[in-house]
């Protein structure tokens, strides 16, 4: 969680929010071997993102390794900009995302920007890689009930097939939203788009998925 603290400025004291990963980031900057904590925290998220984007375990592992290596090497250059991040987005009652501010990690946004670039490079350099279905991912957390497992697997498979058919930017937004549980603000920062654009992107993606699922059922 980000911690509100008082930051002094020329106008006087004002509340400022700190990156929720600030402690871990600072420790890793002082001693690079402490990067391990950040690595363990975000490994599954980065790997999932890579896996859903590349649809291949080995490619996802390669991409994940590259992401964390680049993050470790670039950590001295990382700048925490949580204040600027918040200031760039007006918090209104309509946005309904004031709680997002408590969950912001500019480190995570920075890490996923690296991931986005690495995955984009991977896709660009190896377009001919055979694409395997992602059913393996569905049902990893299999409950004891076999019928429920099968139903969940079918639903997951149908959902994934619908997502896989989405255009690249919508698919990416959906993965960041549903798999990595990012807020709209974080997705906007990762994708380099405005929050409004991301909102519309997600809405249209869901509408496409809904139509696709309806077609599959019929």
């Amino acid at each position, binding site marked *: 969680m980000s911690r509100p603290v008082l930051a002094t400025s020329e106008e006087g004291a004002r509340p400022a929010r700190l990156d929720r990963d600030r402690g871990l980031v600072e420790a890793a900057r002082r*001693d*690079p*071997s402490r*990067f*391990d904590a950040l*690595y*363990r925290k975000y*490994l*599954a*998220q980065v*790997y*999932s993102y890579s*896996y*859903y984007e590349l649809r291949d*375990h080995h490619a*996802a*592992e390669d991409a*994940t*390794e590259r992401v*964390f*290596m680049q993050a*470790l*090497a670039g950590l001295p250059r990382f700048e925490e900009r949580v204040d600027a991040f918040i200031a760039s987005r007006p918090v209104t009652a*309509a*946005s*309904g*995302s004031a*709680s997002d501010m408590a969950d912001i990690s500019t480190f995570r946004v920075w890490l996923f920007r690296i991931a986005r670039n690495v995955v984009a490079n991977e896709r660009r350099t190896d377009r001919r890689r055979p694409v395997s279905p992602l059913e393996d*991912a*569905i049902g*990893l*957390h299999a409950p004891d009930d076999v019928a429920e497992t099968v139903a*969940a697997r079918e*639903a*997951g*498979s*149908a*959902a*994934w097939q*619908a*997502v896989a058919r989405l255009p690249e930017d919508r698919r990416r937004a*959906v*993965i960041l*939203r*549903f*798999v*990595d549980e990012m807020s*709209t603000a974080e997705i906007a920062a990762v994708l380099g788009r405005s929050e*409004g654009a991301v*909102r*519309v992107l*997600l*809405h249209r993606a*869901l*509408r496409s*998925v*809904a*139509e696709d*699922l*309806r077609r599959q059922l019929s």
Partner: protein
Amino acid sequence: MPGSATRNARRTERYLDGLVAADERRAAEIPVDTDMDPAIRVAARQLRAGLVRVHPSFRFEEALAARLAAAADRMKAGLPAELPSAPVAGGTLTAFRGTGAAVADLGVVVVGAAVAESAATPPIGLSHSAATVVRGLTDVAARPRRPLIVGGVGVASAAISLGAVYVAWRHSHPTSGRMSRAVRAAHGRVSHSGRRGSGVVNEILGVVS
């Protein structure tokens, strides 16, 4: 006043936030905006259930952790975090030492590093790789020669010679103990050829006692 697309997008966002919050507190009820398209709600629930987070294998996790730790150690030592990747293609031609005249007869070993592609145009009649060999040889010839190291044959020969000298010396310097005198007396009774034999050995080796 926002347009209908923006309003619908905000409704969807609120619903998604509610979906995540309900999961976090394990609540079945999710606040729903009645104006929201029910098909989108179903799709959102299905994606929420279907798109699970995937964890890599434990072996991969630990292997990457070890590589990151090694990279961190390199950073602490002031070195770059990532090792320069070894080039896959190409190789360096390393010539065995020899004279520059016998270029054609020289053995060449590819040791697996990159050939400098910025090399000058090769001399006429030589391929690019052969030209690289020639350039390497001129460098080798310019270096001072290393001293000759005598191998195992010389060492063994010297050891045998020293052993023979020691045996001859022991023959010519009999010990003066009581037991030794008895042995020599008994040996002398059986045969006198031993003395003569030692004399021959002394003559052969040229050892003067």
